[in-house]
């Protein structure tokens, strides 16, 4: 039991925070949002320089051999400023899929590209009808020669618009909801038959609807075993839950700090509103929820590498529930305590609110994961 950070981890955290402090003021962020892809290519290059993009990859692939704790520190820092870059999509989701399922050649060719900031990935798994059911895959993969033909559609693909390569799930056998028979493919987003439609999420981050009609891929584009993609998908989603849990904690920290500042400075009826005991206790409850979320984000990070699948899934589901409930409480009350100003687009707190809202509804919402836990109560 040990909660200390190593020297390297402290250095990592500090350097990320320094970089973001310089480049993620609220107005600068707005300028990134205004760009066609909704994020900053310039900063992406700097993340690469800083080694963030190869952070969780082995040294032999141009990475830094970091683990979930390092990713947690980075995501927390991103959460504090609402960074927009496709780190989750490319490094966490894409990177995890590559690390776990990628063949030697695939890893050798792609991980270094990611680390150098030259390759953007997206995880194209969810479909219009699937909601939070990870096994609900209707997109089909039919063999053709030595390769495959893909048909179907993927929905709400995070940064699917910027991605050069899609890590895409398709069913080569089995019925809907069957965990077996799902295969992961590396699909070049520019291939014939791939159509993408980009849009902003409620928090400003970008996503895309993607349709595939007769998309041909080669056998070398299969990621991992044919028909055995599901266990990989579960690990990728677990890594995504851990990373966004940390991001939500960063966002909660900022909302908590903004609210505290507001309570101290905002005058009403001739005194700071922070003099109201009811608002003091609400802020205290926000703090308690923030600490609950922090504890649960730590749990998720610790568990990402846990070998026992049941233990891992159980704890990460608990973390998703805890962080989801904590961030909802903190963000709803952050707006409530700000009053009218908190409801406006020009003010930052609403943007943090929406990021936490989107995170709660990504990779399964609180109700979804609480139900999974409930089923294990015997």
């Amino acid at each position, binding site marked *: 039991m040990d909660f200390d950070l190593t020297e390297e981890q402290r250095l990592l955290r500090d350097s990320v925070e320094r970089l973001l402090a310089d480049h993620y003021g609220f107005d600068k962020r707005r300028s990134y949002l205004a760009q066609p892809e909704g994020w900053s290519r310039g900063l992406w290059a700097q993340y690469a320089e800083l080694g963030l993009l190869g952070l969780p990859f082995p040294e032999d692939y141009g990475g830094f051999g970091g683990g979930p704790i390092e990713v947690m520190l980075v995501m927390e820092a991103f959460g504090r400023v609402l960074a927009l870059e496709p780190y989750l999509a490319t490094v966490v989701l894409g990177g995890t899929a590559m690390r776990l399922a990628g063949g030697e050649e695939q890893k050798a060719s792609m991980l270094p590209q990611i680390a150098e900031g030259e390759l953007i990935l997206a995880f194209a798994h969810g479909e219009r009808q699937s909601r*939070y*059911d990870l096994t609900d895959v209707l997109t089909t993969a039919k063999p053709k020669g030595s390769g495959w033909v893909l048909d179907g559609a993927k929905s709400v693909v995070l940064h699917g618009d910027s991605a050069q390569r899609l890590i895409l799930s398709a069913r080569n056998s089995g019925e809907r909801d069957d965990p077996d028979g799902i295969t992961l493919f590396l699909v070049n987003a520019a291939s014939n038959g791939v*159509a*993408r439609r980009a849009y902003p999420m409620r928090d400003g981050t970008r*996503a895309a609807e993607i349709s595939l009609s007769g998309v041909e891929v080669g056998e070398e584009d299969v990621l991992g075993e044919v028909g055995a993609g599901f266990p990989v998908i579960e690990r990728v989603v677990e890594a995504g839950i851990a990373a966004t849990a940390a991001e939500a904690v960063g966002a909660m920290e900022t909302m908590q700090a903004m609210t505290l500042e507001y309570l101290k400075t905002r005058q*009403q009826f001739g005194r700071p509103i922070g003099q109201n005991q009811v608002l003091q206790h609400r802020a205290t409850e926000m703090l308690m929820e923030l600490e609950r979320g922090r504890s649960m984000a730590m749990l998720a990070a610790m568990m990402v590498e846990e070998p026992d699948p049941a233990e891992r899934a159980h704890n990460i589901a608990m973390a998703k529930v805890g962080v989801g409930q904590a961030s909802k409480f903190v963000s709803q009350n952050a707006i409530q305590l700000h009053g009218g100003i908190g409801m406006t687009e020009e003010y930052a707190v609403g943007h943090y609110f929406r990021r936490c809202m989107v995170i709660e509804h*990504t990779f399964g919402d609180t109700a979804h994961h609480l139900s999974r836990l409930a089923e294990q109560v015997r």
Partner: protein
Amino acid sequence: MDLRFTADELAFRDELRTFFRDNLPGDIRERMRLGHAPTKDDTVAWQRILNRRSWAAYSWPKEYGGPDWTPAQRMIFLEENQLAPAPEVSSFNITMIGPVLIQFGTEEQKQRFLPRAANIDDWWCQGFSEPGAGSDLASLKTAAKRDGADYVVNGQKIWTSTAHHADWCFCLVRTDPHAKKRQEGISFLLIDMKTPGITVRPIISIDGSHHLNEVFFDDVRVPVSLRVGEENRGWDVAKFLLGHERTGIARLGKSKERVKFAREAAREMRANGKPLIEDPAFRHRVAQLETDMKALEITQMRVVSAHDRSHDGKPDPLSSVLKVKGTELLQATTELAMDVGGPLAMPDWAQELAALSNEPELGPEWATEATRSYLFLRAASIYGGTNEIQKNILTKAVLGL
């Protein structure tokens, strides 16, 4: 004592339902069902249809173009209108400026403004809040200096809903800066939004909609004849306005309509391989909400029928309970609709849905609208006095603490 509606009340409700079924334009109903905020045109069109039956000014006496309904009938009307679902009549026109003019207006003011307010020929907005004032209304600074037959108004209002649609604004202004108490020295003016010197600046809400505004007054000349009530007695008018007609404050019909919609939508969505509507946790959540709505419905009936009995016209402090519980339910039910949408409720598809092509196909319109109204209604526990302020009111008025 009988909770059930009387035969007359039931007949009245059926009359409304039939009328709504036959007269609410289908496109408007569909936009409302999908969870859109009503457009200006939708609101105007529907209010005029209602006004043909003199139902638009639902809380007014006959002589001014209202239906002379009992509080119970008003409650039924509001709920059925929300359940239709139809756009709600302009509260600025009907429950604010209308009653104010009926109570304090000159004969000329009544004749000039009431019919046009009922028929929403004039779209009214409310100029009360000011920057930094928040719930502390009486600290307003916007000044009106007497100059001949006019007041010259300078200052700024904020959080002014639909000011960008408005033809007229009823406004609290300070006419005596030297008054001892802040509540004194305030007057209540009717201001033509086309008057030179008025600038309206939009405030975009976190749901991306333009509903709120800042309104700047720069040497705006307002004829003294457009003052309501005596000079420096505007606070009495404001108090009357804020306390008046809070029957609709719980907006229960809206919450009921959202749960009804969420149940329908949940039959289409899937959870763990089954329709979401069959998920035990979802069912419990709905059952709890419907239980809470039932309790609030009866409490609202009690407040209304108490008001029916005591014709002192004073606002029942229990209406603060309706405000707090009603907005809590409104927020909980719109959150429910969003959660049904799940991942499909997170994109902001508004622009793409407006586009011509639909390739690749997008997710359901209702899902993106559900999130929009969830976001928009975070303000429900803030406007009209935050729920914390409402509890302060109850603490004093009811508990005497």
